[in-house]
């Protein structure tokens, strides 16, 4: 991928995050798209099985952590005849730069996709300077 990534993506947390977990479930790194618009930076993460109640987003200092819990499916009476994926929790952290306004972060979950909108701080927005005709 391009080398022009911004601070937001530069320091990627190793997987799993360097904390000891108290649950024995597997932890997956969700796949993430990040794009930048004029006023926002949008982060989209694929987290199938997660809904708005089971996702946690925390911002501490300049680390934005997303975590999602997926409930254990009730498979009583069934045997697994073929398995390609396992369920587990999701966790991933991002370093965000000063250009993000910490008080204005929106998040929504739809169909297992988490979308976080980070608004740029006023000072980081591009200001256009009009040139007056002499």
């Amino acid at each position, binding site marked *: 991928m391009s080398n022009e990534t911004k601070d*937001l993506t530069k320091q990627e947390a190793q997987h799993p995050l360097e904390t000891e977990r108290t649950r024995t479930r597997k932890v997956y790194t969700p*796949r993430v798209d990040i794009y930048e618009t*004029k006023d926002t930076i949008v982060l989209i993460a694929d987290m199938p099985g997660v809904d708005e109640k089971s996702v946690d987003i925390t911002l501490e200092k300049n680390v934005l952590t997303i975590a999602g819990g997926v409930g254990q499916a009730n498979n009583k009476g*069934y045997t697994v*005849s073929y398995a390609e994926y*396992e369920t587990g929790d999701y966790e991933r952290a991002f370093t965000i730069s000063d250009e993000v306004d910490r008080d204005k972060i929106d998040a929504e979950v739809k169909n297992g996709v988490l979308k976080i909108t980070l608004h740029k701080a006023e000072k980081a927005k591009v200001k256009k300077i009009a040139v007056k005709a002499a």
Partner: protein
Amino acid sequence: MFGTSFGRFRMAPLSELQRLQRDINRAFSGFDSFMTVQELPTLNVLESSQDVIVTAELPGINSDNLNISIVNDTLTLSGSREPEVLEEGESYHRQERSYGKFSRTIRLPFNVDASKVDAIYKKGILTIVLPRAEKEKPKKITIKAA
């Protein structure tokens, strides 16, 4: 990604290889790859004597773009995921999610009653419940004491 356990589930080794190949392709193919990489949804199949449940991780799909078809004991799941539409001046810093069309066909362990199939799409997971065809249900034979 590499920490998949072979012990807990019966994993399909081929799909593991395909996944590895996909990851390698992704790593080497650069930015323009996202339209050509065909990401197949991963499936889990559970069965009981009465029915079979197929689940697929398909985050962010409009359920109108999902097609399920059943012919005898073959289930085909196809659909597409639409990419985010970026306006001019907007750009990606990172793109790991894949878009585009996908199609998967699997053989079910028995014939199913196609008219009674239920499919639910919730939280990015598609669950298809396929009841076993009535005539194929196992019959319990009682043994009479002589």
